[in-house]
């Protein structure tokens, strides 16, 4: 049933903007750029999908299908996880291209390295938690939910970018040196665990709220 729900999300709810943002990994080829912005666009793509679903009365369509009400939330969480993971995976080849052409260090922010992706997973977890839980309180106020979600997202990104200037952390986290990238892997794993755990908690909380909504 989850496969069918995911199919429905991609076939009906997914907005073309989402697919465009999946290709934004190409922005790793910009010599100096705050790379978190690339994945902020991914959040924006997700927001477009929620708007698309709302404007097409997806909730009412889905309510007629042989599923439980909370499965509506589960479908959207799986959809977000699939889209965000795809955006990360699709961006990685561009980092290799960046290395191959010798573009050098990123002067506008953190380097594209394992630690950065760990932080991106945490950034997504924060966005998803606030956005989903806020949206499914009403199942229609997507704009308000998005605005509420980008505030903690921005605070986290600002904190993460600041942290890499702290002596000691800079040489560990803000580098693409191979031996240091190996030492960044725990940050990546930590980020992935936060993302997975966060998504589970987000689903439980958002589904609980959605159960109480009278459609």
């Amino acid at each position: 049933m989850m496969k069918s729900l995911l199919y429905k999300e991609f076939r009906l709810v997914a907005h073309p903007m989402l697919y465009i943002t999946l290709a934004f990994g190409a922005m790793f080829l910009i010599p100096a750029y705050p790379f978190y912005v690339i994945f902020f666009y991914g959040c924006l793509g997700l927001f477009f999908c929620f708007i698309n679903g709302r404007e097409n009365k997806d909730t009412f369509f889905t309510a007629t299908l042989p599923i439980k009400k909370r499965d509506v939330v589960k479908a959207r969480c799986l959809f977000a996880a699939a889209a965000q993971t795809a955006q990360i995976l699709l961006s990685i080849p561009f980092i290799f291209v960046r290395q191959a052409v010798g573009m050098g260090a990123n002067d506008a922010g953190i380097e594209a390295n394992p630690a950065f992706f760990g932080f991106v997973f945490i950034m997504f977890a924060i966005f998803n938690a606030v956005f989903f839980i806020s949206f499914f309180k009403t199942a229609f106020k997507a704009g308000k939910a998005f605005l509420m979600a980008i505030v903690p997202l921005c605070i986290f990104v600002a904190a993460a970018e600041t942290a890499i200037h702290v002596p000691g952390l800079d040489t560990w986290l803000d580098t693409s040196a191979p031996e240091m990238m190996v030492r960044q892997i725990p940050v990546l794993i930590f980020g992935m665990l936060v993302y997975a755990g966060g998504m589970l908690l987000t689903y439980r909380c958002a589904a609980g709220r959605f159960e109480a909504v009278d459609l």
Partner: protein
Amino acid sequence: MELLKVEGLSKSYPAFTLKNVSFSLKEGRIMGFIGKNGAGKSTTLKSMLGMVHPDSGAISMFGRDFREEEGYCKQNMGIVLGGIDFYMKKKLKVITGVTKKFYPGWDEGNYEKYMRIFELDENKRVEELSAGMRVKYLLALALSHHARLLVLDEPTSGLDPVSRDELLTIFEKLVKDGKRSILFSTHITSDLEKCADDITYIKDGEIVKCSGKKEFLDSFQSLREPDEKELSLEEIMVKMERKNYDEEFAL
């Protein structure tokens, strides 16, 4: 066998209360659910389907508890809620492609048969269909997964008399084999004169009467003025609703 049983359904909103709604629907029957606009028809149907959380009450379908076995119940029913206005820009074949993935018992042959009977082109977009054709499309979807219970919220609203008559004729044919039942809400009482076996009348969130059509009509003949002939459904409803209206003016 009762395909649907609603017992003691209640739901309170700040400005409206659904009070202890109970009725049941047997196999092979068409039940008209009537009431004026705002009487609680849609709230009842949505509460039945879990879209609105009732404060109390129990729903069973096909002898099973709806809340416990929502997936099973929905596998065996077709739902048409109000004006069908979701995914207006999508082609019917896209919506069908998504819908059929949710039904293991999907019958492609049946789908093609009903699309042909209802003269529906699956390459058309939802917005290109008339209101009547949209209802027919959703019926085709429901019949393609062998729905035994069809729940339709005001399916005839906004239809011209010819389309309404056509749809009601389809309803009659669908229940003819005695296996399916239809519950449809309406405020157009002439629909029920034509095809309903049972009538459930809701007024201000309360069920006034639920019975077979003849018994229903007979039970309201006491409202008749001495010089009036037998009251029709419309006249019964108008008299019932107007009574309160007059009282309010008297205050």
